[in-house]
């Protein structure tokens, strides 16, 4: 009797869990559907551009229409094929390399994949930063500045400690210093907004320029600059401090910075959704007045969000200079701070989504390079595709129109 009822209860619990899981799965699918469709649509438009800019092929349209069509499709296939193998490597080649056991062959075969992860890593850091600030209602456009100030902090610390401390100490100190300097650079606009109401979009953009000049100034000093170089480039740091590699293979740059990026995604997710600080940030982001009425400090949330946002970007910059890139230059960022905004929006400001979107952007960047070399389609097509992805994410109505999808029906009002 009791056993039966216990079984029944257990069955009911299981059924309930199953239902919850199914609901979660459906929610995930719903969340992912629009961004995925946006990416597909953008690639489709990219294909159209590949076709209509292939003048050699177009000129055949009159004499050999079928051949022109075939050529057009072939061009797109070749271009995107090159992009895919450039981003993820050639599976067959990876397999044979693994069988041969030659370290050099394996490294060559998997390099596209690891380079994608290397490119994604700073995007994850900066994207998480953007997600935090946007969640708190702060439009942090200053990721670029925060990233290179973080890199500057890490570089300065590493060079100052070089030869005076063990490599492990230098490593940790450089990352901490870089993270904090990026955080402080982000804190400034947060503080200005909370205390004076200065709009963060203006202040963060302006601080990007200031940051660029600060880094240029720093790189003029003999302390930082690579000896004998006329360019604004720092000494190579990886000769005395280097983030450990995940794979012990020649010429593979992938290091534990990527793993730290993934761990940060988990931490940020936990912070936003499991802690009271995260609750305050989200509340302030939705409604400053309601947050104030509930007894929260709105200004405190702004400053904290901006500090954390800058810290993450700064951490990303630090891992670049003492890891994958190896030295500081004034063009270190190359727009990562701006791409981070785009991918954070693509991710719906969710940390897990940021990781996926950063991987996508990383793949586009590394894959695009090979596409440029192999198929003659300019690398710049990638910027075009990236821009379209963002546009389609920002305008879901447009994607629905293209694919003729009905808008989700509004939740019917619960009758009082």
């Amino acid at each position, binding site marked *: 009797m009791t056993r039966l009822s216990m079984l029944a209860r257990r069955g009911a619990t299981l059924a309930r869990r199953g239902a919850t899981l199914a609901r979660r799965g459906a929610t995930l699918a719903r969340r992912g559907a629009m961004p995925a469709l946006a990416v597909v649509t953008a690639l489709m438009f990219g294909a159209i551009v590949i076709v209509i800019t292939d003048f050699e092929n177009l000129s055949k349209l009159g004499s050999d229409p079928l051949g022109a069509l075939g050529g057009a499709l072939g061009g797109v296939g070749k271009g995107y094929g090159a992009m895919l193998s450039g981003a993820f490597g050639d599976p067959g080649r990876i397999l044979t390399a693994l069988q041969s056991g030659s370290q050099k062959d394996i490294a060559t075969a998997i390099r596209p994949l690891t380079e994608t992860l290397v490119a994604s890593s700073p995007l994850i850091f900066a994207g998480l930063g953007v997600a935090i600030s946007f969640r708190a209602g702060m439009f942090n456009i200053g990721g670029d500045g925060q990233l290179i100030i973080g890199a500057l902090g890490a570089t300065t610390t590493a060079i100052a400690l070089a030869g005076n401390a063990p490599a492990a100490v230098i490593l940790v100190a450089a990352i901490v210093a870089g993270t904090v300097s990026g955080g402080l650079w982000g804190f400034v606009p947060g503080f200005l907004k909370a205390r004076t109401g200065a709009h963060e979009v203006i202040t963060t953009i302006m601080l990007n320029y200031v940051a660029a000049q600060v880094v240029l100034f720093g790189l003029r000093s003999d302390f930082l600059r690579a000896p004998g170089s006329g360019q604004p480039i720092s000494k190579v740091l990886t000769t005395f401090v280097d983030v450990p590699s995940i794979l012990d293979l020649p010429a593979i740059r992938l290091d534990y910075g990527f793993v730290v990026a993934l761990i940060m995604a988990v931490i940020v997710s936990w912070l936003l959704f499991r802690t009271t600080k995260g609750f305050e940030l989200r509340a302030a982001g939705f409604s400053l007045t309601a947050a*104030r009425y509930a007894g929260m400090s709105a200004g405190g949330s702004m400053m904290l969000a901006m500090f954390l946002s800058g810290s993450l970007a700064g951490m990303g910059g630090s891992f670049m200079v003492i890891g994958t890139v190896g030295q500081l230059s004034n063009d270190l960022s190359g727009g990562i701070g701006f791409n981070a905004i785009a991918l954070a929006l693509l991710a719906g400001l969710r940390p897990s989504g940021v990781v996926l979107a950063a991987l996508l952007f990383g793949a586009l960047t590394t894959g695009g390079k090979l596409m440029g070399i192999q198929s003659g389609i300019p690398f710049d097509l990638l910027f075009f595709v990236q821009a379209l992805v963002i546009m389609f994410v920002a305008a879901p109505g447009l994607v629905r129109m293209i694919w003729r999808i009905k808008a989700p029906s*509004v*939740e019917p009002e*619960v009758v*009082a």
Partner: protein
Amino acid sequence: MRLELRDISKRFPGVLANDRISISVDRGEVLGMLGENGAGKTTLVNILSGLYRPDAGEVLIDGKAHVFHDPAEAIKAGVGMVHQHFMLVPVFDVVEAVALGAETVSGILGRFDRAAARARIVELSERYGLNVDPDAKIESLPVGVRQRVEILKALYRHSDILVLDEPSAVLTPLETDELYGIIRSLKETGTTVIFITHKLNEVLEVADKIVVLRRGRVAGTAIPAETSRQELANMMVGRDVELVVPKGPANPGDVVLSIRGLQVRDDRLEMAVDGVDLEVRAGEIVAIAGVQGNGQTELVEAIVGLRAIDAGEMLIGGERIGHVSPRHIADLGVAHIPEDRGRDGLINQMTVADNYILDTYHREPYSRRGVFDLQAVAARANQGVLDFDIRTPSIETTAASLSGGNQQKVVVAREFSRPVRLVVAAQPTRGLDVGSIEYIHRRLVEQRDAGAAILIVCTELDEVLAVGDRIAVMYEGRIVGVLAGAEATHEAIGLLMGGATFGGAAA
């Protein structure tokens, strides 16, 4: 013109908003349309004004069937709308705002003939007693006058059927009376008026005929002379409703809130609260009556710590309140039901559970050392949903998708989820339907009987009289009179609200 709606049905995903509704109004007749939020009033109005097309049924004007594809066609057919939210360009003057889209033009270039428009507006304004200055800027006009500009707009477009959607929601009692006068003069000149509201008194006051909607259907019709508030309320809700707030005599105890000579400035740094003395004791409900904008908002904000005190003193439970945070006030056991729940009381994009802990999230059992215990949150939020009868699919539903009454229940459930000594409720029933109002009142009385001091700010006289054990009337930043609830009358309070001084004021 005679308007007839025949078997109108309209379905939205998941809801049958209008289910075979048939209504008719004669020329020069005022139809009062009564119904709770979600009863289908707005859908019906949108069909009438051409925003929606019905799935079935027809709209007949003077016996002729019409199908409106857009609002312009409805206007052309003589149906004029006055929406709840005004659609006026703030920087325009009255003539420009009224004529916009229906300008009289002259010459080949189509120059706006302002003089002609102005003359017509002045004429209309006089004929219907609208009393609108044609040259005033919209942004400088009080809400009541803006509404009259909207009415002018409809009349200017030769509307013979005027639809007023919840017109009194934004008006003071005096402005509401003026509106009734305008409706009567419209009626005399043969205009057909449809007056939509959820307030019982209004339909009884102004309508010739009443139709009650409930859950998308006509629940009944009535003639004002032959019905009662009680009967209408029951029809609206579909069960017997307590219209009188059921409460025993107050049993006042110690002073919980004590205010002496309080001065508070508003956002423009004007003195909004100018020397208020007030005491609220445990176990009593003090209602502050007054026309909106006489310092009530600033007074409440000062009490709950959202606004700095300029001068004077305030004690809550014996503790002197200086420059303190809202959280400190809440920790003293003060529950606050904000005036604008959508903006200040709730975060619409967050879930019911999140909103339930919006000001207690940092305490146990919801969180420990800054980390949430999500199971505890869910358990308590579910309990709150049960205790306060909050109609929501789950605690994970966003606040935005709840009805107004249920949103307010979330606020009240939250505020009463911690120990309460003083309740500060600003317009706690504004915009709610009869059922929800009844519920909120009952909960307030429960708190009173459990020994809390209740301060409630109200602009509606009926509510003030129904709930207040003592009634303090606020006018231009001061308390101009305090009356015992049992002795107070409509007239006495109405006079005080208008600024008349009262013999033996300030108790």
